[in-house]
């Protein structure tokens, strides 16, 4: 598999580390335990198109959101995480 890192270009799988489903959003401080439990443990495992977190540890150390078809391994979109890269983040 090959992933086109937005910062480094096309690189092979071995440079990346897979984390999993990129959909769940970390609950805000003070969220009830059930909500946090869902965030920590409940993950979709879709046979099809899925957004996933990947880490380019063998390259620029950016976290990437990769849209991948888990059946064909076709990657349709790679986006940097909101806080990746050098661009200034507006508070």
């Amino acid at each position, binding site marked *: *598999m*090959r992933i086109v890192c937005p910062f480094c270009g096309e690189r*092979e*799988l071995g440079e990346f*580390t897979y*984390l999993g489903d990129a959909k769940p959003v*970390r*609950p*805000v*401080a*003070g*969220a009830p*335990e059930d909500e*946090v*439990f869902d*965030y*920590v*443990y409940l993950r979709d495992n879709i046979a099809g198109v899925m957004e996933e*977190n990947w*880490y380019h*540890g063998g390259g620029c*150390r*950016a*976290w990437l959101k990769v849209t991948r078809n888990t059946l*064909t*391994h*076709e*990657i349709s979109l790679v986006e*940097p*995480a*909101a*806080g*990746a890269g050098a661009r200034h*983040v507006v*508070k």
Partner: protein
Amino acid sequence: MNSSQSHRLTSGGLIDRSAALNFRFDGKSFAGFQGDTLASALVANGVKLVGRSFKYHRPRGILTAGSEEPNALVELRTGARREPNTKATTAELYEGLEAASQNRWPSLRFDVMSINQLFAPIFVAGFYYKTFMWPAKFWEAVYEPAIRRAAGLGRAAGIADPDHYDKAWAHCDVVIAGSGPTGLAAALAAGRTGARVILCEEDFALGGRLLSDGGTIDGLPAAEWLSRTLAELATMPDVRIMTRTTLFGAYDGGTYGAIERVNDHLPSPPEHQVRQRLWRIVAKRCVVAAGAIERPIVFAGNDTPGVMMASAMRSYVIRYAAAPARRVALFTNNEDGWRTVETALGAGLQIAAVIDARHDISPAHRSLASKGGFPVLHGSVSGVDSGKDGVRKIAVSLTGGARAEVEADGLAVSGGWNPAVGLTSYHRGRPKWREDIAAFVPDGAPPGMVAAGAATGSFGLGACLREGFAAGTAAAHDAGRSGSSGSMPVSDDEAFSLTPLWHVAGKGKAFVDQQHDVTASDVELAQREGFESVEHLKRYTTLGMATDQGKTSNVAGLAIMAAVSGRSIPETGTTIYRPPYVPVAIGAFAGHHRDETFHATRLTPSHHWAAEQGAVFVDTGLWKRAQWYPRAGEKDWLESVTREVKAVRSGVGFCDVSTLGKIDVHGPDAGAFLDRVYINTFSNLAVGKARYGLMLREDGLVYDDGTTSRLAEDHYFLTTTTAKAGLVMQHLEFCRQVLFPELDVQLTSISDQWAQFSIAGPKTRDLLKEIVDPAEDLSNEGFPFMGAREVALRGGIKARLFRISFSGEMAFEISVPARYGEAMARNLMLAGKPFGVTPYGTEALGVMRIEKGHVAGPELSGTTTAADLGLGKMMSTKKDFIGRVMAGREALVAPDRQVVVGVKPTDKASRLRSGAHIIPKGQTPGPSNDQGYVTSVCFSPTSDQWIGLALVERGRERIGEIVHAHDPLRGEDYDVELCNPVFYDPDGGRQRG
């Protein structure tokens, strides 16, 4: 020496008759020529019996002339280079080659195990499951060893492989598998457009079937066209032709696996060269021009030496000028098989008869027969009578029921051709059935791949050139090359007619899979017993599971299954195709990752100095760390370690701790960021101060620990454990980039940039004064416990100095740029001489941390909470942090959790070992009263006995209780007392002093 080459034809062949090569097979000497394979050289020497079969130990010969060979497997080379199951048909001959037949004892001609044939009824499909079921314990002790001796193929060398294997990447526009007419046409077309092309050919010679079947292309004889084409390709700088290279797999994203047998054709690789190279080829497009494989017809005795594929016989005669037989019979069901008759006649061989299963035979072939004076029999071969050298008489069932007999010493068989659908099917593709050629052809292919020529079922030379050229042109254009591909090579299309014939009923064993000894009756039995699905058929009978992966057998097997189960062949379907297409040595996948280069080795900055001191090193992850520094006269490691601990506790010592993960955290939100990743607060840490921090995973369990110092308002310096250095960096980047992108903070890994030393002991300050610029105030007031700041060293180098202590002594850690690490170690030794400075290793470090009750790897086990470690009070209640909510779950705050406590044997002379289970005193050990285990132990010079840390249920409430340590692995049982985990200086006065 036998150099007669009795079956070598007097002229022709792509062999160099001026380069004779001597070789040995089963200890007998033979000769062949440069350009021979081992198989062709054996054929030239009249050797027909080459091995014994897998289950029944039947004599076997050479069936094919390529990588699909099921029978002619040998052990090639000797000693450490001995390679089992090598196909004689692909092994290139070299001077001094040594090969041995497999699966026979004591000799190939007289094999004791051929008695297995008499027991054939018990070796039927599924015999493992049926015969050896009871008693169960007999399986490992009796049945399996016996079966392994009787069945099986070659023997592995059993010695480490002395050769090197390499791995490499290549990138191109178009990769082409196969250099037959299709592949060459594709390479010409793509190459002319200016595309970057890689052409992989598994043979050592280019041309594929052109080398054996000839033909006319662009009005030229095939050989002439071939040399003209290769000359043109050689002028293209971006066309790379790789012979001895098999494209064996197709992977995601246009990545292809190829194995290059760089030096398999030599006795051993030349110095500094590799044996084989594993390629990963990244290509925008792939053209599969892998051709087709001629398939056998299954009949009784079809495994007799002397029975050979018709196309293979042509290869031996034309390409190698070697005659597999003097008097040849042909059994065919198609037009193509007749070429062998023409070839044999042309080489002056006798044709005994042609047995053709078809109704219509062309007038051209009829006149060939009458000219050649041999009969054409309508019917099928129903049996083979073998003499000691293989085929002798062939029994024929004629259409209409009569029988005939043909005397011949060789039988060429053609059952039609199966396109090589492996590569196109590796992404779980299923080939589709084409009725007109009675064969499976590709039905689609992985993205970017297209098949052409015989690989799609287009068997004519003209069609191969057309399809290859078109595929090459399209691939180059798809890859973005717009140049012209020039004019297409042209040839005629031969007619191809075939009447499907898979299995001829007859008496005796009729083999489907010759390498695994699977017979037609095994397939029928599998059907009767309900294993009708092809995937079940495969596993129940082991059809197609041998090293040839059923290249000559799978389709026949499922055709027979289709017939007996009353289904069509497409309804029966194929099994899943999986790479590799040919066996690939594990050594090639490993490449240089073996022995001391199995993984990278990381050396600490002071490594070479430590080695000079005679340090004993220990592997911790990739690192080599000094474990202890033995001195003359010390009888064991314990004596050295005890000395080092005492030296630190009474004087001063130092230890390289550079392996800790080190991360600089910069930015206005650095403090806020650390507050979210640690359970305790860092935003309120004063500049110039350090603080111990603990981080959890989001599920509430402890992840890692370390000290973090604030060097400036917007600059923190964070350390991690050695083991988690990389993972913590990844985790923190996730927090920064994904979870908290609103924070203005940056992380920089500086683990490799700084050398860090712990300097510990009551005389630390005396030593440091010799190192640090005298202007720096190192007094307790000027640099108090948990102070942290940049200092200048004597000579002007900037260093980071931290007053932190892992040992419990008055201690500092000092960081200098890594390039000064070794100099720092030497300087500490020199400056510390008056104070008796002692370098200490990881063992002494561990002893002192256990004495001090500090937790480390064994306690940060991924199952412990902050409270379990006695650090629950660090958890802030005033802020959110990773793991906060989940850490509050019922089970993680239960009062009966196993928590860290100290342990010491009641008998002071007794040794303590980690892993021992803690059981209440007086109870019989068992899972129900297992209350924890000993995590870390050491001999404590300070306590003068073995001490340890343990995770024990309600441990902190039970201080003083005597419990039982049960160690079933080592067979040890002893009593221990639960105690305060801080064995040394519990009030911490020494580290603050």
